[in-house]
């Protein structure tokens, strides 16, 4: 493959949901991406450090335990500060607690600098298709 795209992924904050993380890693690898999986309980700094060292093309954040908003706030600003100004940020999972309509959640995370926001139950194929489009991968 001429230019395999590199993704940095992981479950943010104090969240230990490990299974979805493994499934996503598998799905992204199968789709032809180079995957740097940071696992669970990942801090904002870890995503950034890994993205710098591996020259990642996108950062994918998962959050399953309802504290996503708190954990993700400021990630875009820190990326800008670290020289990753244009790196696409994706986020998905159970991002907030309670029954907030997804449109509101999506709006909130987009305002926080995330390009793509996914509700619970999104199949990996959806994210893969978006990644290919956003990163300019054929196929």
């Amino acid at each position, binding site marked *: 493959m001429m230019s395999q795209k590199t993704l940095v992924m992981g479950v943010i904050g104090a969240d230990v949901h490990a299974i979805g993380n493994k499934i996503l890693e598998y799905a992204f690898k199968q789709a032809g991406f180079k995957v740097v999986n940071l696992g669970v309980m990942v801090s904002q700094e870890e995503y950034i450090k890994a993205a*710098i*060292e591996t*020259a990642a093309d996108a950062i994918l954040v998962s959050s399953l335990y309802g504290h996503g908003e708190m954990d993700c706030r400021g990630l875009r600003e820190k990326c800008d500060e670290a020289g990753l100004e244009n790196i696409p940020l994706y986020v998905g999972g159970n991002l907030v607690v309670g029954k907030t309509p997804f449109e509101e959640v999506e709006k909130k995370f987009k305002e926080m600098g995330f390009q793509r926001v996914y509700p619970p139950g999104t199949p990996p194929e959806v994210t893969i298709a978006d990644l290919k489009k956003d990163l300019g991968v054929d196929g």
Partner: protein
Amino acid sequence: MQAVLLIDFGSTYTKVTAVDLNSESILGTAKAFTTVTTDINEGLKNAVEVLHSQIGGTDYTAKFACSSAAGGLKMVAVGLVPDLTAEAAKRAALSAGARVMKVYSYELSTKEVEEIHKLKPDILLLTGGTDGGNKNVILHNAKMLSQIEGNFPVVVAGNKSVAEQVGDLLKQSDKEVRICENVMPEFNVLNIEPARAAIREIFLRRIIQAKGLTKVQSLIDGILMPTPSAVLNAAHRLAAGCGNEKGIGELMVIDVGGATTDVHSIAGGEPARAGVIVKGLPEPFAKRTVEGDLGVRYSASALIEAAGIELVGKRSGLPAEEIMRYVNKISEQPEILPEQDEKLSLVDYGLTSVAVKFAVERHAGKIETSYTPFGVTYLQTGKDLTGIKKIIGTGGPVINSKNPTGILKEAMFESTHPSILKPQSAEFLIDKKYILAAMGLLSENYPEVAIRIMKKELQVL
């Protein structure tokens, strides 16, 4: 008898150890001042004379040497992210037995490059980027380094996609370049062996010559490695065993000196309990750390600064003013020994204890408790050494102390600091005859003999 002579050219002393391969025993040890400014052979000759006055003249079937003379192997490491490739580079250099003077990360500035020029490293290790990862920073740094005049060799162990380009940039400034595999080929995968081997090869071929040690090359079968590397070698062999000779299992070696305190751990370091999440770079099985601010002579005032005078006072049982008076005296005459001075021996005990405590604390892994919505989880960084069963003390200040047990106890787990993963119950051994470096050398060619001699000679406290 089949005698082998093992030589350690130290910065102060040239130490010699004679071993009989047939009886697998130490024939004798001796030392004399190192004479690196005139002819290094003089110091060696003097040491051998002392040795032969004890054991009689002997013919040797082989002579091997290690060296930390003339400042040891001075290195500078350059990486990208401080706790990723820069840390990997530092570990590669340490495992090669180098003295790492400074570690740089991200794009080098003009000021930093000038600093490197002044540091005059023997070798520079340049890393940055995983394979296929970041290219710009290592290219930038190669360009910056090519502007330095000094013709120190550079080992390039960064992103393979630009390794040749990096090499070409450096060669423009007449630097010898060795390209080897990336220290971090994939994110969080540590691969320090190729860089370590490259460093050692350059050390043998170039550094020894540059430091005027080649004169002895004709006399002996070769200076094999820097001294710290020999100690790590010995520790590794003793723990792991070789052939039919079983090792003694996971262990730690603590080497306190005048300038530094080295800690070697030969252990997997995996979490001792279930449900612990490990963070950070993977740890080498044989890990060496060096604390440049924890020595009991040249670094005594730095030690006081790092550890605080109160703690040294508490360990030595002397008031702060008295300790400061001695520390000043030590700084003026680093060669003084405590034999004639009871109070100095108390000060030495205090300094050595504190050096061991801090050096092991920095070496050992840490565990952090995290309260999540799912209950308590634990995050571990570094090596869990709670299960280590043997701690070996070496270095003058430990060997010559009247209370080595007291000193080595400082390496143990403290229930008041449960987050530091130090050994929980271990046996103490002491390298009374100061043979670890020699056994590291011997084990290059006679590993089983070296292991058996160590088992015999290391005394249980």
